[in-house]
Protein backbone atom coordinates (compact mmCIF):
# COMPACT_ATOMS: atom_id res chain seq x y z
CA UNK A 1 0.00 0.00 0.00
CA UNK A 2 1.31 3.42 -0.85
CA UNK A 3 2.63 5.32 2.08
CA UNK A 4 0.36 8.30 1.57
CA UNK A 5 -2.78 6.19 1.33
CA UNK A 6 -1.86 4.24 4.42
CA UNK A 7 -1.10 7.45 6.29
CA UNK A 8 -4.39 9.06 5.39
CA UNK A 9 -6.35 5.89 6.17
CA UNK A 10 -4.80 5.54 9.60
CA UNK A 11 -5.32 9.23 10.19
CA UNK A 12 -8.97 8.96 9.25
CA UNK A 13 -9.57 5.93 11.48
CA UNK A 14 -7.78 7.70 14.27
CA UNK A 15 -9.95 10.80 13.89
CA UNK A 16 -13.10 8.69 13.80
CA UNK A 17 -12.10 7.02 17.03
CA UNK A 18 -12.28 10.30 18.92
CA UNK A 19 -15.89 11.02 18.11
CA UNK A 20 -18.46 11.21 20.87
CA UNK A 21 -21.34 8.82 20.35
CA UNK A 22 -23.04 6.23 22.52
CA UNK A 23 -20.80 3.53 21.09
CA UNK A 24 -17.66 5.59 21.60
CA UNK A 25 -18.59 6.16 25.22
CA UNK A 26 -18.74 2.45 25.98
CA UNK A 27 -15.88 1.04 28.00
CA UNK A 28 -13.05 -0.25 25.79
CA UNK A 29 -13.03 -3.57 27.62
CA UNK A 30 -16.69 -4.12 26.77
CA UNK A 31 -16.08 -3.44 23.10
CA UNK A 32 -12.98 -5.64 22.93
CA UNK A 33 -14.81 -8.52 24.62
CA UNK A 34 -17.90 -8.15 22.44
CA UNK A 35 -15.81 -8.00 19.26
CA UNK A 36 -13.81 -11.11 20.22
CA UNK A 37 -17.03 -13.00 21.02
CA UNK A 38 -18.37 -11.92 17.64
CA UNK A 39 -15.28 -13.16 15.82
CA UNK A 40 -15.25 -16.49 17.65
CA UNK A 41 -18.96 -17.02 17.00
CA UNK A 42 -18.64 -16.25 13.28
CA UNK A 43 -15.54 -18.36 12.86
CA UNK A 44 -17.08 -21.32 14.68
CA UNK A 45 -19.53 -22.03 11.87
CA UNK A 46 -18.71 -25.11 9.82
CA UNK A 47 -17.44 -24.52 6.37
CA UNK A 48 -20.60 -24.93 4.34
CA UNK A 49 -22.69 -22.48 6.33
CA UNK A 50 -23.49 -19.27 4.54
CA UNK A 51 -27.03 -18.16 5.24
CA UNK A 52 -26.90 -18.65 8.99
CA UNK A 53 -24.01 -16.18 9.08
CA UNK A 54 -26.10 -13.34 7.68
CA UNK A 55 -27.87 -12.28 10.91
CA UNK A 56 -24.45 -11.52 12.35
CA UNK A 57 -24.25 -8.58 9.98
CA UNK A 58 -26.54 -6.75 12.35
CA UNK A 59 -23.69 -6.22 14.83
CA UNK A 60 -21.33 -4.28 12.56
CA UNK A 61 -24.25 -2.47 10.95
CA UNK A 62 -25.55 -1.29 14.31
CA UNK A 63 -22.12 -0.32 15.60
CA UNK A 64 -21.33 1.60 12.45
CA UNK A 65 -24.69 3.36 12.37
CA UNK A 66 -24.76 4.27 16.06
CA UNK A 67 -21.10 5.18 16.00
CA UNK A 68 -21.48 7.36 12.91
CA UNK A 69 -18.81 5.53 10.96
CA UNK A 70 -19.05 5.88 7.16
CA UNK A 71 -20.04 2.50 5.73
CA UNK A 72 -18.30 3.08 2.42
CA UNK A 73 -14.97 3.67 4.14
CA UNK A 74 -15.21 0.39 6.02
CA UNK A 75 -16.33 -1.49 2.91
CA UNK A 76 -13.41 -0.09 0.91
CA UNK A 77 -10.92 -1.20 3.54
CA UNK A 78 -12.45 -4.67 3.72
CA UNK A 79 -12.06 -4.99 -0.04
CA UNK A 80 -8.48 -3.75 0.13
CA UNK A 81 -7.34 -6.54 2.45
CA UNK A 82 -9.34 -9.35 0.87
CA UNK A 83 -6.73 -10.72 -1.58
CA UNK A 84 -5.19 -13.31 0.74
CA UNK A 85 -8.49 -14.80 1.83
CA UNK A 86 -9.77 -14.80 -1.75
CA UNK A 87 -6.55 -16.34 -2.99
CA UNK A 88 -6.71 -19.23 -0.54
CA UNK A 89 -10.47 -19.59 -0.69
CA UNK A 90 -10.66 -19.71 -4.47
CA UNK A 91 -9.20 -23.21 -4.35
CA UNK A 92 -12.33 -24.50 -2.66
CA UNK A 93 -14.49 -24.45 -5.77
CA UNK A 94 -11.63 -25.98 -7.71
CA UNK A 95 -10.86 -28.78 -5.30
CA UNK A 96 -14.28 -29.74 -3.95
CA UNK A 97 -16.08 -32.00 -6.41
CA UNK A 98 -19.27 -32.48 -4.40
CA UNK A 99 -22.38 -30.95 -5.85
CA UNK A 100 -25.27 -29.40 -4.00
CA UNK A 101 -28.59 -28.12 -5.22
CA UNK A 102 -29.46 -24.64 -4.04
CA UNK A 103 -32.84 -23.88 -5.47
CA UNK A 104 -34.94 -26.42 -7.33
CA UNK A 105 -33.24 -26.55 -10.69
CA UNK A 106 -29.85 -25.05 -9.97
CA UNK A 107 -26.84 -26.92 -8.65
CA UNK A 108 -23.39 -25.67 -7.79
CA UNK A 109 -20.19 -27.26 -6.61
CA UNK A 110 -20.06 -27.41 -2.84
CA UNK A 111 -16.75 -25.65 -3.14
CA UNK A 112 -18.53 -22.45 -4.14
CA UNK A 113 -20.65 -22.70 -1.01
CA UNK A 114 -17.63 -22.98 1.23
CA UNK A 115 -15.92 -20.19 -0.71
CA UNK A 116 -18.95 -17.98 -0.14
CA UNK A 117 -18.80 -18.91 3.54
CA UNK A 118 -15.18 -17.83 3.70
CA UNK A 119 -15.99 -14.53 2.04
CA UNK A 120 -18.91 -13.80 4.36
CA UNK A 121 -16.86 -14.71 7.44
CA UNK A 122 -14.07 -12.53 6.14
CA UNK A 123 -16.29 -9.50 5.60
CA UNK A 124 -17.87 -9.91 9.05
CA UNK A 125 -14.67 -10.37 11.04
CA UNK A 126 -12.67 -7.69 9.26
CA UNK A 127 -15.38 -5.07 9.54
CA UNK A 128 -15.77 -5.91 13.23
CA UNK A 129 -12.05 -5.32 13.78
CA UNK A 130 -12.12 -2.03 11.87
CA UNK A 131 -15.18 -0.86 13.77
CA UNK A 132 -13.47 -1.64 17.03
CA UNK A 133 -10.66 0.78 16.30
CA UNK A 134 -13.03 3.25 14.68
CA UNK A 135 -15.15 3.48 17.82
CA UNK A 136 -12.43 3.12 20.44
CA UNK A 137 -9.38 5.32 20.51
CA UNK A 138 -6.11 3.39 20.41
CA UNK A 139 -5.05 4.62 23.87
CA UNK A 140 -8.47 3.48 25.04
CA UNK A 141 -7.87 0.01 23.67
CA UNK A 142 -4.45 -0.06 25.34
CA UNK A 143 -5.99 0.91 28.68
CA UNK A 144 -8.61 -1.77 28.17
CA UNK A 145 -5.93 -4.36 27.39
CA UNK A 146 -4.04 -3.36 30.53
CA UNK A 147 -7.09 -3.84 32.67
CA UNK A 148 -7.82 -7.15 30.95
CA UNK A 149 -4.47 -8.40 32.17
CA UNK A 150 -1.85 -7.65 29.55
CA UNK A 151 1.60 -6.78 30.98
CA UNK A 152 2.29 -3.11 31.74
CA UNK A 153 5.51 -3.11 29.76
CA UNK A 154 3.80 -4.32 26.60
CA UNK A 155 0.97 -1.83 26.93
CA UNK A 156 3.31 1.07 27.65
CA UNK A 157 5.33 0.45 24.57
CA UNK A 158 2.15 0.03 22.52
CA UNK A 159 1.21 3.53 23.61
CA UNK A 160 4.63 4.85 22.62
CA UNK A 161 4.29 3.16 19.26
CA UNK A 162 1.01 4.92 18.71
CA UNK A 163 2.36 8.29 19.77
CA UNK A 164 5.24 8.11 17.34
CA UNK A 165 3.50 6.27 14.55
CA UNK A 166 2.55 9.42 12.68
CA UNK A 167 5.91 11.06 13.32
CA UNK A 168 7.78 8.08 11.91
CA UNK A 169 5.43 7.72 8.97
CA UNK A 170 5.96 11.35 8.08
CA UNK A 171 9.70 10.87 8.26
CA UNK A 172 9.45 7.83 6.04
CA UNK A 173 7.35 9.80 3.55
CA UNK A 174 9.97 12.55 3.44
CA UNK A 175 12.73 10.02 2.86
CA UNK A 176 10.79 8.26 0.12
CA UNK A 177 9.98 11.55 -1.56
CA UNK A 178 13.64 12.54 -1.44
CA UNK A 179 14.61 9.19 -2.93
CA UNK A 180 12.03 9.48 -5.66
CA UNK A 181 13.19 12.96 -6.60
CA UNK A 182 16.76 11.79 -6.82
CA UNK A 183 15.98 8.58 -8.71
CA UNK A 184 16.32 8.67 -12.43
CA UNK A 185 14.24 5.94 -14.05
CA UNK A 186 14.86 2.90 -11.92
CA UNK A 187 18.16 3.95 -10.42
CA UNK A 188 18.04 4.35 -6.71
CA UNK A 189 14.95 2.26 -6.18
CA UNK A 190 16.92 -0.92 -5.57
CA UNK A 191 17.88 -2.66 -2.37
CA UNK A 192 21.22 -0.88 -1.90
CA UNK A 193 19.64 2.52 -1.42
CA UNK A 194 16.85 0.94 0.57
CA UNK A 195 19.30 -0.58 3.02
CA UNK A 196 20.93 2.81 3.57
CA UNK A 197 17.59 4.54 3.98
CA UNK A 198 16.38 2.01 6.51
CA UNK A 199 19.68 1.99 8.33
CA UNK A 200 19.78 5.76 8.59
CA UNK A 201 16.15 5.85 9.71
CA UNK A 202 16.94 3.24 12.34
CA UNK A 203 19.80 5.27 13.77
CA UNK A 204 17.73 8.45 13.78
CA UNK A 205 15.00 6.52 15.56
CA UNK A 206 17.34 5.24 18.23
CA UNK A 207 18.69 8.71 18.86
CA UNK A 208 15.18 10.12 19.00
CA UNK A 209 14.23 7.42 21.51
CA UNK A 210 17.11 8.46 23.72
CA UNK A 211 15.97 12.08 23.61
CA UNK A 212 12.42 10.99 24.41
CA UNK A 213 13.57 8.91 27.35
CA UNK A 214 15.60 11.79 28.72
CA UNK A 215 12.74 14.25 28.47
CA UNK A 216 10.29 11.81 30.02
CA UNK A 217 12.65 11.14 32.91
CA UNK A 218 12.76 14.88 33.43
CA UNK A 219 8.97 14.79 33.71
CA UNK A 220 8.89 12.01 36.27
CA UNK A 221 8.49 8.90 34.11
CA UNK A 222 8.52 5.76 36.20
CA UNK A 223 7.82 3.10 33.61
CA UNK A 224 4.10 3.30 33.12
CA UNK A 225 2.22 5.97 31.18
CA UNK A 226 -0.39 7.29 33.62
CA UNK A 227 -3.89 8.10 32.55
CA UNK A 228 -6.21 10.70 34.04
CA UNK A 229 -9.34 8.93 32.86
CA UNK A 230 -11.28 7.05 35.46
CA UNK A 231 -12.74 4.19 33.57
CA UNK A 232 -15.28 2.18 35.45
CA UNK A 233 -17.70 -0.34 34.11
CA UNK A 234 -21.17 1.11 33.89
CA UNK A 235 -24.49 -0.70 33.49
CA UNK A 236 -24.53 0.33 29.83
CA UNK A 237 -21.29 -1.58 29.25
CA UNK A 238 -22.59 -4.72 30.94
CA UNK A 239 -25.83 -4.48 28.99
CA UNK A 240 -23.94 -4.10 25.74
CA UNK A 241 -21.80 -7.18 26.37
CA UNK A 242 -24.70 -9.29 27.58
CA UNK A 243 -27.01 -8.26 24.77
CA UNK A 244 -24.32 -8.88 22.15
CA UNK A 245 -23.37 -12.24 23.64
CA UNK A 246 -26.99 -13.37 23.78
CA UNK A 247 -27.58 -12.29 20.20
CA UNK A 248 -24.47 -14.14 19.00
CA UNK A 249 -25.45 -17.26 20.94
CA UNK A 250 -28.96 -17.14 19.51
CA UNK A 251 -27.77 -16.77 15.94
CA UNK A 252 -25.18 -19.50 16.45
CA UNK A 253 -27.54 -22.06 17.93
CA UNK A 254 -30.70 -21.32 15.99
CA UNK A 255 -30.93 -21.08 12.22
CA UNK A 256 -32.48 -17.65 12.19
CA UNK A 257 -32.79 -17.13 8.44
CA UNK A 258 -34.38 -20.54 8.12
CA UNK A 259 -36.92 -19.78 10.81
CA UNK A 260 -37.78 -16.38 9.39
CA UNK A 261 -38.04 -17.79 5.88
CA UNK A 262 -40.32 -20.59 6.95
CA UNK A 263 -42.49 -18.12 8.86
CA UNK A 264 -42.79 -15.81 5.87
CA UNK A 265 -43.55 -18.64 3.49
CA UNK A 266 -46.12 -19.91 5.92
CA UNK A 267 -47.75 -16.51 5.88
CA UNK A 268 -47.62 -16.33 2.11
CA UNK A 269 -49.46 -19.63 1.82
Amino acid at each position, binding site marked *: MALETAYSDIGRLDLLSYKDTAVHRLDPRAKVVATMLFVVAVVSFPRYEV*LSLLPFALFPVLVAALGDIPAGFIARKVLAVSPFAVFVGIFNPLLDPDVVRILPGTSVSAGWVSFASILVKFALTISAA*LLLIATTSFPGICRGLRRLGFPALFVSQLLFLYRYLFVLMEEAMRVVRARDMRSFGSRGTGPRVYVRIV*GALFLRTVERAERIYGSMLARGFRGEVPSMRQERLRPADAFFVLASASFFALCRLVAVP*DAIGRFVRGLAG
Partner: protein
Amino acid sequence: MHMADALLSPAVGGAFWAGTAATIGYASKKLKDGQDDRKIPLMGVLGAFIFASQMINFTIPGTGSSGHLGGGMILAILLGPHAAFLVMASVLTVQALFFADGGLLALGCNIWNLGIYPCYVAYPLVYKPLAGDGGSPRRLFAAALLSAVAALQLGAFSVVLQTLLSGISELSFGAFLLMMQPIHLAIGIVEGLVTAGVVHYVLTARPEILEASAAAGPLPAGVSLRNVMTGFLLLAVVTGGALSWFASAYPDGLEWSIEKVTGKAELPGREHGAPAALKKLQEKTAILPDYGFRKEEAAPGGAEETPSWPSVDAGTTVSGLVGGLLVLAMSVAIGWAIRAVRKSRAGRPGV
Protein backbone atom coordinates in the same frame (compact mmCIF):
# COMPACT_ATOMS: atom_id res chain seq x y z
CA MET B 1 1.14 -14.04 4.31
CA HIS B 2 -0.87 -12.98 7.30
CA MET B 3 -3.35 -15.55 8.49
CA ALA B 4 -6.99 -14.51 8.16
CA ASP B 5 -9.89 -15.02 10.60
CA ALA B 6 -12.04 -16.48 7.88
CA LEU B 7 -9.65 -19.41 7.43
CA LEU B 8 -9.34 -20.21 11.12
CA SER B 9 -11.34 -22.34 13.48
CA PRO B 10 -11.91 -21.14 17.07
CA ALA B 11 -9.85 -24.01 18.47
CA VAL B 12 -6.75 -23.23 16.42
CA GLY B 13 -7.11 -19.48 16.84
CA GLY B 14 -7.65 -19.79 20.56
CA ALA B 15 -4.73 -22.15 21.00
CA PHE B 16 -2.30 -19.83 19.25
CA TRP B 17 -3.66 -16.82 21.09
CA ALA B 18 -2.99 -18.61 24.36
CA GLY B 19 0.56 -19.36 23.26
CA THR B 20 1.12 -15.79 22.09
CA ALA B 21 -0.32 -14.22 25.22
CA ALA B 22 1.83 -16.47 27.40
CA THR B 23 4.91 -15.49 25.41
CA ILE B 24 4.05 -11.79 25.70
CA GLY B 25 3.89 -12.24 29.45
CA TYR B 26 7.13 -14.18 29.47
CA ALA B 27 8.99 -11.63 27.34
CA SER B 28 7.68 -8.74 29.44
CA LYS B 29 8.81 -10.43 32.59
CA LYS B 30 12.27 -11.12 31.20
CA LEU B 31 12.64 -7.50 30.16
CA LYS B 32 11.38 -6.13 33.42
CA ASP B 33 13.84 -8.18 35.42
CA GLY B 34 16.77 -7.28 33.22
CA GLN B 35 16.74 -3.67 32.12
CA ASP B 36 15.60 -0.27 33.25
CA ASP B 37 12.77 1.71 31.72
CA ARG B 38 15.00 2.99 28.93
CA LYS B 39 13.85 0.18 26.70
CA ILE B 40 10.19 1.18 26.73
CA PRO B 41 10.36 4.34 24.60
CA LEU B 42 13.02 2.66 22.46
CA MET B 43 10.82 -0.33 21.75
CA GLY B 44 7.81 1.84 21.10
CA VAL B 45 9.56 4.13 18.70
CA LEU B 46 11.30 1.22 16.96
CA GLY B 47 7.88 -0.34 16.53
CA ALA B 48 6.77 2.80 14.75
CA PHE B 49 9.97 2.63 12.71
CA ILE B 50 9.32 -0.97 11.64
CA PHE B 51 5.76 -0.07 10.80
CA ALA B 52 6.85 2.87 8.68
CA SER B 53 9.73 1.08 7.00
CA GLN B 54 7.45 -1.80 6.02
CA MET B 55 5.74 0.68 3.75
CA ILE B 56 8.85 1.75 1.91
CA ASN B 57 9.25 -0.46 -1.12
CA PHE B 58 12.27 -1.31 -3.13
CA THR B 59 12.44 -3.00 -6.49
CA ILE B 60 14.17 -6.33 -6.58
CA PRO B 61 16.73 -6.21 -9.40
CA GLY B 62 16.00 -8.57 -12.24
CA THR B 63 12.42 -9.37 -11.32
CA GLY B 64 10.78 -5.98 -11.30
CA SER B 65 8.69 -6.89 -8.30
CA SER B 66 8.87 -4.87 -5.16
CA GLY B 67 9.72 -5.98 -1.69
CA HIS B 68 9.79 -4.59 1.78
CA LEU B 69 11.18 -5.41 5.15
CA GLY B 70 9.51 -7.75 7.60
CA GLY B 71 11.68 -6.68 10.50
CA GLY B 72 11.62 -9.61 12.88
CA MET B 73 15.24 -10.65 12.37
CA ILE B 74 16.62 -7.11 12.40
CA LEU B 75 14.91 -6.44 15.69
CA ALA B 76 16.10 -9.71 17.17
CA ILE B 77 19.68 -9.05 16.15
CA LEU B 78 19.76 -5.47 17.33
CA LEU B 79 17.50 -5.63 20.40
CA GLY B 80 17.64 -9.16 21.67
CA PRO B 81 14.85 -11.74 21.46
CA HIS B 82 12.47 -10.54 24.16
CA ALA B 83 12.33 -6.89 23.16
CA ALA B 84 12.14 -7.86 19.50
CA PHE B 85 9.19 -10.15 20.15
CA LEU B 86 7.26 -7.46 21.99
CA VAL B 87 7.95 -4.92 19.27
CA MET B 88 6.78 -7.35 16.55
CA ALA B 89 3.70 -8.14 18.61
CA SER B 90 2.83 -4.47 18.94
CA VAL B 91 3.45 -3.74 15.25
CA LEU B 92 1.17 -6.61 14.28
CA THR B 93 -1.45 -5.41 16.77
CA VAL B 94 -1.46 -1.97 15.19
CA GLN B 95 -1.66 -3.53 11.72
CA ALA B 96 -4.52 -5.80 12.78
CA LEU B 97 -6.47 -2.86 14.16
CA PHE B 98 -5.76 -0.09 11.68
CA PHE B 99 -5.41 -2.18 8.56
CA ALA B 100 -7.52 -5.17 9.59
CA ASP B 101 -4.58 -7.24 8.42
CA GLY B 102 -5.92 -10.70 9.03
CA GLY B 103 -8.25 -10.08 11.91
CA LEU B 104 -8.33 -10.16 15.68
CA LEU B 105 -8.49 -13.91 16.23
CA ALA B 106 -5.78 -14.46 13.65
CA LEU B 107 -3.64 -11.86 15.46
CA GLY B 108 -2.57 -14.57 17.87
CA CYS B 109 -1.45 -16.75 14.98
CA ASN B 110 0.25 -13.87 13.19
CA ILE B 111 2.24 -12.77 16.23
CA TRP B 112 3.26 -16.39 16.65
CA ASN B 113 4.26 -16.84 13.00
CA LEU B 114 6.09 -13.54 12.62
CA GLY B 115 7.43 -13.18 16.16
CA ILE B 116 8.24 -16.53 17.73
CA TYR B 117 10.18 -17.99 14.82
CA PRO B 118 12.54 -15.05 14.22
CA CYS B 119 13.06 -14.18 17.90
CA TYR B 120 12.98 -17.48 19.73
CA VAL B 121 13.94 -20.00 17.09
CA ALA B 122 16.01 -18.50 14.29
CA TYR B 123 17.88 -16.00 16.46
CA PRO B 124 19.21 -18.35 19.15
CA LEU B 125 19.54 -21.44 16.99
CA VAL B 126 20.77 -20.02 13.71
CA TYR B 127 22.00 -16.47 14.08
CA LYS B 128 23.85 -16.52 17.39
CA PRO B 129 25.90 -19.66 16.75
CA LEU B 130 26.82 -18.57 13.22
CA ALA B 131 27.57 -14.93 13.99
CA GLY B 132 29.70 -15.74 17.00
CA ASP B 133 31.17 -12.64 18.60
CA GLY B 134 30.14 -10.40 15.72
CA GLY B 135 33.66 -9.66 14.63
CA SER B 136 33.63 -11.06 11.12
CA PRO B 137 31.36 -9.25 8.64
CA ARG B 138 31.17 -12.31 6.40
CA ARG B 139 29.92 -14.50 9.25
CA LEU B 140 27.40 -11.83 10.23
CA PHE B 141 26.19 -11.63 6.66
CA ALA B 142 25.79 -15.39 6.35
CA ALA B 143 24.15 -15.60 9.76
CA ALA B 144 21.63 -12.86 8.97
CA LEU B 145 20.78 -14.38 5.61
CA LEU B 146 20.34 -17.93 6.90
CA SER B 147 18.36 -16.95 9.98
CA ALA B 148 15.96 -14.81 7.92
CA VAL B 149 15.40 -17.67 5.47
CA ALA B 150 14.85 -20.13 8.33
CA ALA B 151 12.44 -17.81 10.15
CA LEU B 152 10.33 -17.22 7.04
CA GLN B 153 10.24 -20.89 6.10
CA LEU B 154 9.01 -21.74 9.58
CA GLY B 155 6.47 -18.94 9.47
CA ALA B 156 5.10 -20.06 6.12
CA PHE B 157 4.94 -23.67 7.30
CA SER B 158 3.08 -22.48 10.36
CA VAL B 159 0.46 -20.76 8.21
CA VAL B 160 -0.04 -23.97 6.25
CA LEU B 161 -0.44 -25.95 9.48
CA GLN B 162 -2.91 -23.48 10.94
CA THR B 163 -4.99 -23.49 7.77
CA LEU B 164 -4.97 -27.26 7.59
CA LEU B 165 -5.87 -27.77 11.24
CA SER B 166 -8.76 -25.32 10.95
CA GLY B 167 -10.33 -27.25 8.12
CA ILE B 168 -12.01 -24.31 6.43
CA SER B 169 -9.95 -24.28 3.27
CA GLU B 170 -10.01 -27.21 0.87
CA LEU B 171 -6.35 -26.82 0.06
CA SER B 172 -4.49 -30.00 0.78
CA PHE B 173 -1.37 -29.94 2.89
CA GLY B 174 0.86 -30.77 -0.04
CA ALA B 175 -0.61 -28.25 -2.46
CA PHE B 176 -0.54 -25.39 -0.01
CA LEU B 177 2.97 -26.25 1.07
CA LEU B 178 4.05 -26.31 -2.54
CA MET B 179 2.69 -22.80 -2.97
CA MET B 180 3.91 -21.25 0.24
CA GLN B 181 7.39 -22.56 0.83
CA PRO B 182 9.09 -21.65 -2.47
CA ILE B 183 7.59 -18.16 -2.44
CA HIS B 184 8.75 -17.60 1.09
CA LEU B 185 12.15 -18.99 0.29
CA ALA B 186 12.54 -16.18 -2.23
CA ILE B 187 11.09 -13.65 0.21
CA GLY B 188 13.38 -14.99 2.92
CA ILE B 189 16.46 -14.56 0.78
CA VAL B 190 15.54 -10.98 0.00
CA GLU B 191 14.73 -10.29 3.64
CA GLY B 192 17.98 -11.92 4.69
CA LEU B 193 20.01 -9.77 2.32
CA VAL B 194 18.28 -6.59 3.44
CA THR B 195 18.63 -7.61 7.10
CA ALA B 196 22.31 -8.27 6.64
CA GLY B 197 22.72 -4.93 4.88
CA VAL B 198 20.92 -2.93 7.56
CA VAL B 199 22.70 -4.71 10.40
CA HIS B 200 26.02 -4.05 8.73
CA TYR B 201 25.14 -0.38 8.22
CA VAL B 202 24.03 0.07 11.80
CA LEU B 203 27.00 -1.72 13.29
CA THR B 204 29.42 0.26 11.17
CA ALA B 205 27.86 3.52 12.31
CA ARG B 206 27.23 2.66 15.95
CA PRO B 207 28.91 -0.58 16.99
CA GLU B 208 27.94 -0.21 20.63
CA ILE B 209 24.28 -0.83 19.85
CA LEU B 210 24.79 -4.56 19.56
CA GLU B 211 26.77 -4.83 22.78
CA ALA B 212 24.35 -2.68 24.71
CA SER B 213 21.32 -4.71 23.82
CA ALA B 214 22.49 -8.26 23.41
CA ALA B 215 21.49 -10.40 26.34
CA ALA B 216 24.67 -12.40 26.61
CA GLY B 217 28.14 -12.30 25.15
CA PRO B 218 29.53 -14.76 22.63
CA LEU B 219 28.93 -18.41 23.44
CA PRO B 220 31.92 -20.62 24.05
CA ALA B 221 32.58 -22.75 20.99
CA GLY B 222 31.82 -26.11 22.53
CA VAL B 223 28.57 -25.12 24.20
CA SER B 224 27.20 -23.37 21.17
CA LEU B 225 27.72 -26.37 18.95
CA ARG B 226 25.90 -28.62 21.37
CA ASN B 227 23.04 -26.14 21.70
CA VAL B 228 22.80 -25.86 17.96
CA MET B 229 22.79 -29.61 17.50
CA THR B 230 20.15 -30.13 20.17
CA GLY B 231 18.04 -27.41 18.66
CA PHE B 232 18.21 -28.84 15.19
CA LEU B 233 17.56 -32.33 16.51
CA LEU B 234 14.44 -31.12 18.28
CA LEU B 235 13.32 -29.27 15.17
CA ALA B 236 13.93 -32.35 13.07
CA VAL B 237 11.96 -34.58 15.41
CA VAL B 238 9.06 -32.17 15.60
CA THR B 239 8.83 -31.42 11.91
CA GLY B 240 9.60 -34.99 10.94
CA GLY B 241 6.97 -36.29 13.29
CA ALA B 242 4.42 -33.78 12.07
CA LEU B 243 5.23 -34.45 8.44
CA SER B 244 5.10 -38.20 8.82
CA TRP B 245 1.82 -37.85 10.66
CA PHE B 246 0.37 -36.00 7.73
CA ALA B 247 2.11 -38.25 5.26
CA SER B 248 0.39 -41.28 6.68
CA ALA B 249 -2.94 -39.52 6.50
CA TYR B 250 -2.49 -38.45 2.91
CA PRO B 251 -0.64 -41.25 1.17
CA ASP B 252 -0.05 -39.62 -2.16
CA GLY B 253 -0.69 -36.10 -1.04
CA LEU B 254 1.96 -34.34 -3.06
CA GLU B 255 1.43 -36.14 -6.36
CA TRP B 256 -2.29 -35.97 -5.94
CA SER B 257 -2.25 -32.27 -5.23
CA ILE B 258 0.09 -31.58 -8.13
CA GLU B 259 -2.21 -33.54 -10.37
CA LYS B 260 -5.15 -31.63 -9.02
CA VAL B 261 -3.52 -28.26 -9.40
CA THR B 262 -2.26 -28.88 -12.90
CA GLY B 263 -5.28 -31.01 -13.76
CA LYS B 264 -7.64 -28.14 -13.42
CA ALA B 265 -6.62 -26.98 -16.86
CA GLU B 266 -8.43 -29.99 -18.24
CA LEU B 267 -12.14 -30.52 -18.57
CA PRO B 268 -13.72 -30.59 -15.14
CA GLY B 269 -15.77 -33.66 -16.02
CA ARG B 270 -12.71 -35.87 -15.94
CA GLU B 271 -11.92 -35.09 -12.35
CA HIS B 272 -14.62 -37.04 -10.68
CA GLY B 273 -13.00 -40.44 -10.59
CA ALA B 274 -9.64 -40.10 -8.90
CA PRO B 275 -10.35 -37.40 -6.30
CA ALA B 276 -13.50 -39.08 -5.07
CA ALA B 277 -11.71 -42.35 -4.62
CA LEU B 278 -8.76 -40.70 -2.95
CA LYS B 279 -11.01 -38.77 -0.67
CA LYS B 280 -12.57 -42.03 0.46
CA LEU B 281 -9.12 -43.43 1.07
CA GLN B 282 -8.17 -40.35 3.05
CA GLU B 283 -11.23 -40.60 5.17
CA LYS B 284 -10.41 -44.21 5.99
CA THR B 285 -6.80 -43.63 6.90
CA ALA B 286 -6.79 -40.08 8.20
CA ILE B 287 -5.97 -39.69 11.85
CA LEU B 288 -6.98 -36.06 12.18
CA PRO B 289 -10.74 -36.41 11.56
CA ASP B 290 -11.11 -38.28 14.84
CA TYR B 291 -9.93 -35.20 16.61
CA GLY B 292 -12.78 -33.34 15.06
CA PHE B 293 -10.77 -30.63 13.33
CA ARG B 294 -11.69 -31.48 9.80
CA LYS B 295 -15.13 -32.84 10.52
CA GLU B 296 -18.03 -30.46 10.23
CA GLU B 297 -19.90 -30.07 13.47
CA ALA B 298 -23.51 -31.08 13.12
CA ALA B 299 -25.18 -27.69 12.93
CA PRO B 300 -27.38 -27.49 16.00
CA GLY B 301 -30.84 -26.54 14.96
CA GLY B 302 -30.43 -28.27 11.59
CA ALA B 303 -29.62 -25.21 9.52
CA GLU B 304 -29.00 -25.31 5.82
CA GLU B 305 -26.04 -27.66 6.25
CA THR B 306 -27.02 -30.96 4.71
CA PRO B 307 -25.68 -34.23 6.11
CA SER B 308 -25.56 -36.08 2.82
CA TRP B 309 -24.48 -34.84 -0.54
CA PRO B 310 -25.74 -34.25 -3.13
CA SER B 311 -29.38 -34.44 -2.24
CA VAL B 312 -30.54 -31.23 -0.64
CA ASP B 313 -33.96 -30.61 0.76
CA ALA B 314 -34.96 -27.87 -1.61
CA GLY B 315 -37.65 -26.63 0.75
CA THR B 316 -35.28 -25.96 3.63
CA THR B 317 -32.79 -24.17 1.46
CA VAL B 318 -35.39 -21.93 -0.12
CA SER B 319 -36.64 -20.95 3.30
CA GLY B 320 -33.11 -20.31 4.33
CA LEU B 321 -32.51 -18.11 1.31
CA VAL B 322 -35.68 -16.14 1.86
CA GLY B 323 -34.91 -15.70 5.54
CA GLY B 324 -31.29 -14.82 4.85
CA LEU B 325 -32.22 -12.15 2.34
CA LEU B 326 -34.78 -10.76 4.72
CA VAL B 327 -32.26 -10.60 7.53
CA LEU B 328 -29.78 -8.79 5.33
CA ALA B 329 -32.42 -6.36 4.13
CA MET B 330 -33.50 -5.69 7.70
CA SER B 331 -29.95 -5.02 8.81
CA VAL B 332 -29.34 -2.59 5.98
CA ALA B 333 -32.67 -0.89 6.62
CA ILE B 334 -31.89 -0.52 10.32
CA GLY B 335 -28.53 0.97 9.50
CA TRP B 336 -30.02 3.48 7.07
CA ALA B 337 -32.81 4.40 9.44
CA ILE B 338 -30.39 5.15 12.26
CA ARG B 339 -28.22 7.27 10.01
CA ALA B 340 -31.23 9.14 8.66
CA VAL B 341 -32.44 9.90 12.18
CA ARG B 342 -28.95 11.05 13.09
CA LYS B 343 -28.72 13.36 10.11
CA SER B 344 -32.10 14.91 10.68
CA ARG B 345 -31.24 15.47 14.33
CA ALA B 346 -27.93 17.05 13.43
CA GLY B 347 -29.67 19.31 10.92
CA ARG B 348 -32.05 20.79 13.43
CA PRO B 349 -30.82 24.08 14.93
CA GLY B 350 -29.99 24.13 18.57
CA VAL B 351 -29.13 20.43 18.77
